[in-house]
């Protein structure tokens, strides 16, 4: 019979790699595209696209910007290893 093994003994170095507060930003592109109130309307149209379509396509840019920012902010520095 074994006791449960929680992940408590994480080393400080590992925390720096994976537990950055910047990661919380990633919840923005997970939550925002899932709120229909933002995009479920026809007007204003952009290049003939109803808002429903152009705004949801614009969330792609939001996603790219956020993942790029988080990657840049959390990537290993040169002397880390």
């Amino acid at each position, binding site marked *: 019979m074994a006791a449960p093994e929680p992940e408590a003994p994480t080393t400080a170095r590992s925390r720096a790699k994976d537990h950055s507060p910047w990661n919380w930003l990633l919840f923005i592109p997970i939550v925002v595209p899932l709120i229909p109130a933002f995009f*479920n309307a026809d007007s204003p149209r952009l290049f003939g696209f*109803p808002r429903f379509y152009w705004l949801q396509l614009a969330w792609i840019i939001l996603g790219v910007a956020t993942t790029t920012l988080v*990657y840049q902010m959390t990537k290993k520095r040169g002397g880390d290893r």
Partner: protein
Amino acid sequence: MWRDHLTEIIVFSLLFLLVSAMGFVAARWRAPRDMAHLDEWGLGGRSFGGWITWFLVGGDLYTAYTFVAVPALIFGAGAAGFFAVPYTIVIYPLVFLVLCRLWSVSHRHGFVTPADFVRNRFDSPILALLIAITGIVATMPYIALQLVGIEAVLKTMGVTGDSALARHLPIIIAFAILAAYTYQSGLRAPALIAFVKDSLIYIVILVAVVYLPYKLGGWGDIFDAADAKFKASPAPGDGILLNANNQLQYVTLAFGSALALFLYPHSITGVLASKNRDVIKRNMSALPAYSLLLGLIALLGYMAIAAGVKPLPGAKAGSVDGNTVVPLLFDSQFPDWFAGVAYGAIGIGALVPAAIMSIAAANLFTRNIYKEYLKRDASPAQEANVSKITSLVVKVGAVACIVFLDPQFSIDLQLIGGVIILQTLPAVALGLYTRWFHRGALIAGWVAGMGLGMWMLYQIGNPATGKKHFAGSAFPLEKFGFDTTKTIYVGIVAVLVNLAVAALLTLVLRAAKVADGVDATTPDDYFADEGDPRVTPGTERDADVAPEPVA
């Protein structure tokens, strides 16, 4: 009637032959010292850099389903079909967080499949077997869906006959070729072909989204034509915007599909084949380029409405095959030779994911059924061999799905697969973060989620087609006794119940002090990166082997 499409058939055939040749040559591309190893055949040597991973995972996630079924859904139902866009936006932040950990622990321990991870994390061969079977069963209809994509193209070119055999013969030939080069080259074949596939698709779509609106009077007119069609149709759920009843379904379907997509064995195969964590993270910023493409492809459905496309008849008398709208749109609007290129793009677009999926399913069988239960001391060469043969069997199964089932329900088949694969979320995705769940509780949660999911899918009918069961994934909440006409995605409900059962039983089993096995991974494993000491894959299998020393 195929004579009218001769140019298209020739261009299509040439492209198909080109990629087939590439598939066979791929065995020598970045050639390994020893191909008779599952890491080489099934994961391309775990060595793919940024560009290859981008093409491979992009070619893997955006399948023939993308090019054929999503516009078909938009053509038929309007805005509800656009869920594919939020779905493929939400997935990348999720992968960024979760699959990096899976990559690290797999790199350290030589895991090839998600079930390998579960086996070692939770010390439970039964749970690993359930995960493996879930993965294989969910992948089968997904491969079948790829065949539907090719079939839609072949049908439009008029090369499919009327009898059951003649209708499917071209597909059987195409898949026989695919099976042969996947057998020989493993994951290297789709990785190499993905370059051709994606280049063709980008060209076709860029031309389509510039040229077609110009021909059809502009984007505004296209949306207005679609609006007019949906206003005239008697169906309550369609329209170019969502209505009050399907918004919850739209959001839960997008989120649930995103959760499901990265649990699919083939996505995990693509991610594990990359060479380090940076490659994965950088790709999560670059892969959304495909989402933009997908959004534009989806709108081809509205262009088909504006162009007055009438889908070809389906397999049953009186039904229509909605999947033919995009090929028909290309046929009516493009010159023949360019339509041929577009068809080639769709056809090859089906081959890449079908190859990766069959490899992923074969790896699951080899690692978690064959090696676990049939031959414990299998050598790496034997593992690779079993995987190669299994990949053939899987493809035969997929072809059988198409021959014996109505392809009209391809998208629903895939949605059922999504519900199934979501039930591995607690063990695989949450398991990457916590060992809190009891292995027995995870098994019980899986059973509960699976049972509820199947029951809910069984309850869903479609009055329009007269189908009483398994006609979709939008579950009317009134069947739970709520006084509402809203619908919700089955997978989300099933996985929530799965989680609730797993959490409650964990408390119970802990209180009863039921044995919970030994975790063979250490917290540090989840951050390992390229250059870390790595076990030789295939040697560490048993959970009672001492954990790797902390690097």
